């Protein structure tokens, strides 16, 4: 006769939901979830009720109607008869332009300042500390306004360039610095210019290929090819040759005074410059601190070990320190990029028509569809932030410590 009995059948009792540790956390999480959903539901219902009371509803039909206003900086075709949706796209592109320019420049400023903060030179070190502290501790809106005000107040108006003996003149006859922005020559793409562009792209690829080949050769055979001047030759010579062979298809359209303003060339507006520069220099100060922290996180032993192998200081930085420091630098760098992108919504302070200025500003105001516009704005910023995070996370995964 067997003495083995079935284990006592666990009969589930309601009290177990609270007293049994296996279920308790689920119970409370469920309660919290229900409460949260009720709260959101209440807020949503409250919104709909109050809107209905005012005789309004949530609808997105206004996006198809003509916007009726003009935008100065238009990356895509747009006029006052275009739809609100198109105006929003113009705003989105303007946001992206300033965000991309800002991120690139901020990284440049930040990495430079961060490395120089660790310079053995006392003056350089202190200057960089001064830059970081000054820019990090003043709100970015103030910097935007300061830079914009300096631009409009200090630089001459286009009228100063007029007359036989003007107060101001253009730099090299090609660049005009005015209080409405900077005018630079624009390229005119003639027939055959596509060949020049393709050659240029090919030579960029060629530079990378050559450098990779040289590195591989170094690792395989120990033979060191020169890197510097061949890269420059590959970069410049083919393009210049093709440019002249094709009969100089690309010419420049120089800005010139025309009516009230400069005409021709590319007009980089003062609002873009102020916003771009302020965001870059402000976020750059934060990135500098990230870079400094990242470099200092690599133990001093690594530098000493590399030095004892005979590496020169530049090589130590490029080959030993920075690759390890990047693991520390990249994650906070992502959030700095996100900050910069979101801070670009301060654009309206200087009249830069970003998406907050078009969709969240004029469109919202002219149509009165505040909730719809703000919802779309939130969606846009959410999407762009997630996209930046995703891209940067891919990069982060590529450089992070490979555990073997």
């Amino acid at each position, binding site marked *: 006769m067997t003495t083995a009995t079935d284990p006592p059948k666990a009969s589930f009792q309601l009290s177990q939901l609270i007293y049994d540790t296996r279920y308790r956390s689920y119970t409370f999480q469920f309660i919290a979830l229900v409460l949260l959903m009720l709260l959101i539901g209440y807020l949503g219902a409250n919104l709909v009720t109050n809107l209905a009371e005012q005789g309004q509803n949530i609808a997105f039909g206004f996006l198809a109607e003509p916007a009726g206003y003009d*935008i100065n900086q238009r990356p895509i075709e747009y006029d006052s008869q275009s739809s609100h949706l198109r105006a929003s796209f113009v705003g989105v592109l303007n946001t992206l332009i300033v965000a991309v320019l800002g991120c690139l420049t901020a990284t440049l400023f930040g990495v430079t300042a961060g490395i120089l903060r660790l310079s053995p030179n006392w003056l350089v070190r202190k200057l960089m500390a001064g830059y970081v502290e000054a820019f990090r501790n003043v709100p970015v809106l103030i910097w935007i306004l300061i830079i914009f005000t300096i631009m409009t107040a200090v630089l001459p108006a286009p009228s100063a360039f007029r007359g036989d003996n003007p107060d101001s003149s253009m730099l090299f006859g090609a660049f005009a610095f005015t209080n409405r922005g900077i005018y630079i020559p624009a390229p005119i793409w003639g027939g055959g210019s596509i060949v020049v562009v393709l050659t240029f792209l090919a030579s960029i690829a060629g530079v990378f290929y050559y450098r990779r080949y040289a590195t591989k050769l170094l690792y395989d055979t120990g033979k060191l090819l020169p890197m510097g001047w061949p890269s420059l030759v590959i970069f410049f010579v083919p393009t210049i040759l093709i440019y002249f062979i094709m009969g100089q298809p690309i010419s420049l359209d120089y800005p010139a005074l025309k009516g009230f303003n400069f005409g021709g060339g590319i007009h980089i507006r003062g609002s873009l410059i102020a916003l771009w520069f302020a965001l870059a220099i402000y976020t750059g100060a934060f990135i500098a601190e990230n870079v400094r922290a990242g470099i200092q996180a690599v133990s001093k032993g690594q530098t000493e070990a590399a030095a004892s192998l005979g590496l020169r200081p530049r090589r130590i930085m490029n080959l030993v320190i920075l690759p390890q420091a990047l693991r520390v630098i990249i994650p906070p760098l992502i959030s700095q990029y996100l900050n910069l992108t979101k801070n670009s919504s301060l654009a309206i302070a200087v009249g830069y028509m970003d998406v907050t200025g078009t969709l969240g500003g004029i469109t919202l105001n002219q149509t009165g569809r505040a909730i719809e516009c703000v919802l779309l704005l939130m969606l846009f910023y959410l999407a762009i932030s997630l996209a930046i995070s995703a891209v940067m996370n891919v990069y982060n995964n590529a450089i992070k410590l490979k555990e073997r």
Partner: protein
Amino acid sequence: MNKTVFLGALTVAGLAAGASAAATLDDVKARGTLNCGVTTGLVGFAAPDANGVWEGFDVAVCRAVAAAVLGDANAVEFVPTTGKTRFTALASGEIDMLARNTTWTFSRDTDLKFEFVGVNYYDGQGFMVPKALGVSSAKELDGATVCIQTGTTTELNLADFFRKNNISYEPVPVETNAEGQQQYLAGACDAYTTDASGLAATRAAFENPTEHVILPEIISKEPLGPLVRHGDNDWGDIVRWTLNALIASEELGVTSANVEEMASEPTNSPEINRLLGTEGNLGEMIGLDADWAKRAIAVGGNYGELFEKNIGEKTPIGLARGLNAQWTDGGILYSPPFR
């Protein structure tokens, strides 16, 4: 059980939130002050003086309403609003009325669910340029950079005007009048456009007003008036008829100087008597006492007095009455009868 109580509480809260939308008059009386939305600063229309006391033509309307409703012209909380924030402020109930050079348009009246109670200034959009520019007509502004307050009807009129005349321009959006003035004076824009009255007021604040000209073209109709939210008609009536009282009193010859005397005993003009409450019960009809109009007029005088004192020809702003004269004097100001 607990859940039921919770939901019940939510329902009550929701109902309470809904109910507070109506009966602005009760809210104002309970609060003891009138929240009035004005500009962030436009000399002559609404701007704080050296002592921080708001004054101006639009401010006077707020004060008249406060005097009519609360009996105290100083019981006004002035809320500065920009072109962008004004409608949200009104729709959300942050302010009880908006007196801020706001153009009465179809979509604002219907789609935005506001109620324009009348017109206190008939205006039109104009352009101001420096004399040195040598421009005499807005049609010569091809290629010009134009500063414009964003979120206003002027922005749309500007686009229409340039499109109609087939000339190009570059808009420079600015947030407030002060910002526009700064940009214009720095030469960051060739021309500044807004309502002609606003241009005159802005120019008056310049160091050298004579160096700037206002171009002759008036490119739009801009009837400016105070507005309230849809849905509280009693409150709308109070603001509407306070404004009408100011206009009618000029027509009837009631001024700040003689209003006390006229209101002390019935005169031989029945309409003045009805207006000032010595005859009939008009005050009771709009939920106020009999002296409401008397108090509103006593604050700063009738429409004509307010005009002369704040923006008239003797002030630095120097606006002529023009369209804003009484209908009896060739203008289009016309108050419905007090009857």
